[in-house]
């Protein structure tokens, strides 16, 4: 679509006389990320398919909506929670989908190109190993959070429209808008995606990409086995389970400042309440340092690796 402007049209034989300018790194990065999206269409198709299912389900769910709004046994706070719940569930389901897609993507990202030997083609182009690894890392760190955000906000918006249409159809005014604050939910969602999916889980993405660059086969086994082995060896050697506790803290406990909520799940209960506290917590920075080390190792491995 965009031919380099520095080539001379119509005179291919003379074009090599003119030394063309270097393509800026941002442009090479842009095309490298687009390349990933061409190859892995599930990165956006999977969340879109799940969003379609959510909309079908929520269309059915609107049948009970007028009843929920006028249940006298509920106080306003409970009512609010009850009405917001489907929106939260939609966001959770979409986040779960892109998380799974992200895991599968990362495990294959640097192994697949060696398996199908296409690495020889990619390496014949002036794109460094660093840029290749960064473009692949940008998928879980940047692209997937953005895709999740966009799909979730649009899905929730349509859910709200469906609900409002149902209320209007049953002769009630669209009071749903006062119960569901789409804007507030979106801001919270974006904050959650950046803080937890991109930053807090950074070591996971780094580790997956490192294993993908290293393993010749059975990458999923290599992702889990070393972690299991460390846990078991620690138990045998010291009869402690700090490593297991650390993993649990990272992936089940959630980041610093997350209040383990009593009843009901909301986006707020899954996200660090105090951003300042979160950003200065050593846990976050240790995780980011580990992720950076993994990516650096992956760059180096890609330099050495040959087709499998």
């Amino acid at each position, binding site marked *: 679509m965009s031919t380099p402007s520095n080539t001379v049209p119509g005179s291919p034989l003379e074009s090599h006389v003119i030394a063309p300018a270097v393509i800026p790194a941002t442009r*090479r990065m842009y095309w490298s990320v687009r390349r990933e999206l*061409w190859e892995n269409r599930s990165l956006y198709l999977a969340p879109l398919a799940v969003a379609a299912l959510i909309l079908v389900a929520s269309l059915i769910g609107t049948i009970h909506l007028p009843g929920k709004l006028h249940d006298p046994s509920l106080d306003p706070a409970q009512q609010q929670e009850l009405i917001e719940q489907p929106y939260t569930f939609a966001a959770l389901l979409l986040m779960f989908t892109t998380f799974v897609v992200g895991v599968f993507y990362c495990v294959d990202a640097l192994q697949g190109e060696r398996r199908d030997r296409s690495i020889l083609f990619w390496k014949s*182009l002036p794109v460094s190993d660093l840029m290749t690894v960064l473009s692949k890392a940008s998928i879980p760190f940047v692209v997937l959070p953005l895709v999740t955000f966009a799909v979730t906000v649009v899905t929730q918006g349509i859910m709200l429209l469906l609900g409002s249409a149902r209320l209007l159809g049953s002769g009630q005014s669209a009071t749903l808008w006062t119960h569901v604050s789409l804007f507030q939910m979106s801001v919270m969602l974006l904050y959650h995606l950046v803080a937890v999916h991109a930053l807090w889980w950074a070591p996971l993405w780094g580790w997956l990409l490192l294993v993908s660059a290293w393993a010749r086969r059975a990458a999923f086994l290599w992702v889990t086995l070393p972690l299991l082995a460390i846990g078991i060896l620690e138990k045998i050697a010291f009869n402690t389970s700090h490593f297991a506790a650390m993993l649990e803290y990272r992936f089940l406990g959630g980041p610093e400042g997350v209040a383990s909520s009593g009843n009901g799940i909301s986006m707020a209960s899954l996200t660090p309440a105090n951003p300042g506290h979160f950003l200065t917590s050593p846990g976050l920075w240790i995780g980011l340092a580990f992720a950076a080390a993994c990516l650096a190792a992956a760059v180096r491995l890609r330099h050495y690796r040959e087709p499998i």
Partner: protein
Amino acid sequence: MACIEARGLRKAFGTTIALDGIDLRVEEGRILGLIGPNGAGKTTALNAILGLTPYRGELQVLGRDPWTERDQLMRDVCFIADVAVLPRWIRVSQALDYVAGVHPRFDRAKAESFLAKTAIRRASKVRELSKGMVAQLHLALVMAIDAKLLVLDEPTLGLDILYRKQFYDSLLNDYFDRSRTIVVTTHQVEEIQHVLTDVMFINRGRIVFDRSMEEVESRYLEVMVHPEQVAAARALKPMHERQGLGRSILLFDAVDRQQLAALGDVRTPSIADLFVAVLSNQSGAAQGGAR
């Protein structure tokens, strides 16, 4: 400045020595055929030149160290390493978009005009193309890149003879000029013989023969010796002797043409025959040394 310059290039995989101290110099504007049996070290040598594998010794390609500067080097170097390395999921249009997006010397219009001569459709995925078409696509991409050095490692492996001939014809007619350098390895030596300006034989990680084609044509002669002259011909110390059509065929290095013409029919040997002669002398010498 030489296009490729290597001194004492070494590479071992465990205990197997793939490159055993190679010295090599390829000047600009040459078409070099690198010929050797399987496992001789051809691909390893090319991989070192392309920055795909680490090595010991000195190596400069276009004045750069390929191992540490691969991405910069690839602005001026192109390669088709093996067949079928184009990703199978990519569409033809996407391949064009991507290379245009990352390569400063890619002329998209040129690639499009090559593709227009083929049956390849823009919307096809690589996996939907035949093997020959994939090779055509790869060649179209590579020829549209204004590179100083083109490296081809078995570029026509597994293609039928029509595609192979077409491949080398377009390479020569549409691509090659005196400012470019091409290094090619292939098993179908006889098909590229007329294309080459230089030929190099590699065996067991060593370069055992390195001549320009003019030298080959002026120095080496093959004689189909008349039966009664065989003893006289053998006295002239042929490099190699083989039987063909019931006659002895003897290959000579730097023996006067007039003198040979008296012994039988004289002709320039094919690269393939020369290769067999050089390599069998090699293994003979090796066995002699062992005894």
